[in-house]
């Protein structure tokens, strides 16, 4: 049973206790192309579900990243400052963006599991 969840905006979350690590899906990084810059939130910033939390820039364009659930930022992936291409090479691993301390674990129920997300993106093709 995977603890990986996905949003319709193509973010993923890995939940551990009351904390979630957040990044963008492999589908999203493929759509974006080469990532050249990621603007991360600051530790201590608070977001409600759906609020803009980060920006990811490819050669071509900038895209907003939303907090899939509400919470407070506890950690950001500073490795992306030097190597934003980690988002392309390992979207669901080393390419993570930030960690949130969850406000309300019940918000996770609105998200998709991996197989539902795969079906969702298949429907977008």
């Amino acid at each position: 049973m995977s603890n990986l969840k996905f949003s319709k905006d193509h973010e993923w979350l890995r939940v551990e206790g009351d904390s979630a690590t957040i990044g963008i899906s492999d589908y999203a990084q493929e759509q974006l192309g080469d990532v050249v810059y990621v603007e991360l939130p600051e530790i201590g910033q608070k977001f409600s579900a759906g609020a803009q939390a980060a920006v990811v820039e490819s050669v071509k364009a900038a895209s907003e990243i939303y907090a899939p659930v509400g919470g407070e930022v506890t950690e950001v992936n500073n490795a992306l400052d030097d190597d934003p291409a980690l988002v392309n090479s390992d979207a669901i691993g080393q390419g993570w963006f930030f960690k949130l301390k969850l406000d309300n674990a019940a918000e996770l129920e609105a998200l998709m599991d991996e197989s539902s997300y795969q079906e969702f993106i298949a429907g977008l093709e």
Partner: protein
Amino acid sequence: MSGTNGPQSEPVNTTALHDKHVALGAKMVPFTGYSMPLNYPAGILAEHLHTRESASLFDVSHMGQISIWGEGAAHALERLVPGDIIGLAPSALRYTQFTNDQGGIRDDLMVTNADGRLMLVVNAACKDADLELLVAGFKGSVDVALHDDKALIALQGPQAVAALARHAPKAENLEFMHAAAMKIAGADAVVTRSGYTGEDGFEISVYAEAANDVWDILLAEPEVSPAGLGARDSLRLEAGLCLYGHDIDEATSPVEAGLLWSIGKRRREEGGFPGEQRILDEIANGPKRRRVGILPEGRAPARENTEILSAAGESVGIVTSGGFGPSTGGPVTMGYVDIAHAKTGTSLGLLVRGKTIPASVVKLPFAAHRYHKN
């Protein structure tokens, strides 16, 4: 995640090379009414770098190819552009602009003096309007034709000459900004040594039915990989070249845009082109604003329409092209600033998502031009 670029209207046209792009796995996007390759599986970054290191093949058949001919064709064209067309030597080509009565730019174009005809390459989005302008402007003995039956293929990069010369030996000695008729893959082609990347390279005009053969034999050369519109855009931005509809438009004059070099001495003295009042005044007295290169500090790109601030925080201009330069390894930006802030070295700020990024005016291009030296 959501993109900030809105969708474009559905494409209605495809180029002669459409099936090649699809077979190569290109990401096809609508662009000025055409379905065009944004990038191939290698991606924009790799395609850009390959162009600077080796050679890339671009389908630019969406561009308009127009020819004009007949007695007085050069004189007639000079009534629409500030460039010196009468003085264009046989087989030479030159960059110029269609200007409007207010001195703005209706389109920018290349003009080749080919065998008694003037061959124009114009922007895809403007080609119908350009054709109307030419037809309305020319009366009597000058004829105009739009060549929708022709494809245009660009081969760009330091290894372009080696790859092309294996099939068309005349390419080896073709001078920069000159044209020659050549046979490639058995087809008649008009080849110019020119391009839009800042590198040495060629643009190859062939009839659409020959385009696939020409594409295939050039792509089969070991130096050559395909590249899409994404790399074309980042290459031209690093090269400091204007993109119509962004860095130049109906409101910007050639002088503001830093294109004064394209207006010959005789034209500056004689005038006789649309918008001459403003353009000649700006030549004499200087423009109020100027297109400049802007280098942001840090890694965040400043995109088109980003507000440009003075060191004191006042609004002094707007970004017209901005992104990431794969060869420079950082953000690169062009925009218009009030003339008081246009000097190289001037400190500026770029207002990106509510934060001011420090930046400074730099000399264009960001990546040195490496055109063929005659």
